[in-house]
């Protein structure tokens, strides 16, 4: 059935409107966040005075400064062990925590999570979708484990694996795994099934059946599962890093400290905004990458 494609404006106009909305909001924010320079905040009524402070709404140029400082932090002359300065950006610069370095480490963690968790998830989904017996025995267990938020496991996993690489990666792998299983499972069971029957009737079997029929048929579902898994992987990575890693974008956002005392460092909103924007951009780029690659892999799909 044809979906309701309401009269959509042409693409050029869409882009123009979107750009205009971004520019307008950034301009409005810049004006608002610089208001404290013009107006003496102490003259303003209470709730507005509370909001219009640079500690709450960092001026746009401060955000840009923070960006420049964070990108150049690696080259700062001082380095070495973490000194508790109580200053978010100061602390980061002293530790030579750069924006690009943090993003790289987090991206690496996300990719490991996708690679390991994704393959395990696809494998489990294939098995469950392929064999009814496996499905009936394993599905209930899968549902039990899926119900546990990956980050809730952190405290327990730490006791087993210590405070290290594996401990940071495990929740990410776990999260990706649980997300990828179901789309793969549905792709194999509900979509590939009819083609499997047709291929069997033509005499195909074994590896040919798997590589030429099952995987391609389930492919689009696996890919859409992977796209969702990317979002979940980033979320989990940021969560783990905020909770206990010593590096990565989550660590940059929270600015040091340890365990439940982490938020006691007074956060610098400019650093946080830089981190968030960087996260959104990287997330978008990775999604676009998967989308483009996926479209090429599944060219035969009617769109």
């Amino acid at each position, binding site marked *: *059935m*044809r*979906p*309701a*494609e*309401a*009269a959509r*404006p042409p693409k050029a*106009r*869409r882009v123009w*409107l*979107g*750009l*205009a*909305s*971004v520019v307008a909001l950034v301009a409005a924010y810049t004006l608002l966040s610089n208001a404290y320079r013009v107006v003496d905040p102490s003259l303003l009524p209470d709730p507005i005075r509370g909001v219009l402070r640079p*500690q*709450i709404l960092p001026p746009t140029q401060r955000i840009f400064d923070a960006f420049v400082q964070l990108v150049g932090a690696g080259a700062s002359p001082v380095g070495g062990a973490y000194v508790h300065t109580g200053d978010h950006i100061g602390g980061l610069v002293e530790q030579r925590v750069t924006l690009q370095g943090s993003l790289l480490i987090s991206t690496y963690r996300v990719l490991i999570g996708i690679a390991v968790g994704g393959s395990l998830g696809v494998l489990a989904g294939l098995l469950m979708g392929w064999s009814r*017996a496996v499905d*009936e*025995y*394993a599905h*209930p267990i899968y*549902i*039990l484990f899926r*119900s*546990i*938020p990956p*980050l*809730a*496991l*952190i*405290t*327990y996993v*730490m*006791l087993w694996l*210590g*405070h290290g690489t594996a401990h940071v990666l495990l929740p990410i792998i776990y999260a990706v795994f649980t997300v990828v299983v179901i789309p793969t499972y549905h792709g194999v069971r509900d979509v590939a099934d009819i083609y499997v029957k047709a291929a069997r009737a033509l005499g195909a079997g074994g590896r040919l059946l798997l590589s030429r029929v099952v995987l391609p048929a389930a492919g689009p579902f696996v890919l859409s599962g992977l796209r969702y898994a990317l*979002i979940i992987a*980033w*979320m989990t990575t*940021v*969560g783990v890093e*905020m909770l206990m890693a010593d590096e990565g*974008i989550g660590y940059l*956002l929270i*600015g040091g400290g340890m*365990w*439940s005392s*982490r*938020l006691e460092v007074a*956060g610098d*909103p400019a650093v*946080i905004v830089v*981190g*968030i924007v960087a*996260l*959104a*951009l990287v997330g*978008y780029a990775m999604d676009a990458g998967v989308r483009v690659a996926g479209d090429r892999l599944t060219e035969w799909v009617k769109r």
Partner: protein
Amino acid sequence: MNGLWRRRLWRALLSVGALAVLYGIASEIGSALLPRRIWMVAHYLEDVELLPPYRSLLEETVFLIQSGILPRSVLVSTARVFEGLALGAAVGVPLGLSMARAARLECLLDPWVTFFRFTPALALLPLYALWFGLGELSKILLIATAVAVVTLLGAYQGVRDVPRVYLEAAKSLGASKGLILRKIVWPAALPQIFSSLRIALGLAWVTVVVAELIKATMPSLGYLLALAGAYPRVPTIAVGIVTIGLLVLACDAVALGCYAVATRWMKRSPAHA
């Protein structure tokens, strides 16, 4: 059909039962063999039960319930989840609906929706903590943000996917815009809105646990985990994890039930269960 379901149930019970028995055996062996002293970062942790046997789990459960810690934590965390869910859906669903119906609004909001879609909600926690303090408000708003993004996309896609033939049929029967919205667009988009709510509920639990782990001022499930992890008391951690898992499972079952009721008019292929 009936026999099929009986076999499914039987096999489910069998595999879950087998898992439970395996754990029981492993924990009995483990309590004898596993180290109770663990080196952690800078010091030894004493008296750690890595695999607490059922005995200690039971004792711990009884203690946590009798002392009122567990019931109160459950109440606090669940309340946060549902407050955030309600708030987020109240913002996300109407926005998604109007974006799908108004082309210009869609163009204006599109970059922002994309931005929030790829921003992990958890990354907003430090910002919210700064803006709204470390208390209740920032946690609920964090959950609401995660929920709003998911439900907005669900509602938007739901409206976009309404087959054109329904809209044309309604229009040719003389229906006004308001009537079409109430009687055609809304019910046709409802299934997708409900499935997005189900996903959002799962995300809300993930979010609340982390928000509570990072900073809790009240007894709550994340706080319980954080505290138990600091000592560490594994039976407490285990009870906390299992409780969260069961709550997520129950919420998901309720969401699935709501979905089934809201879509009872839909044709279902027999393969779907």
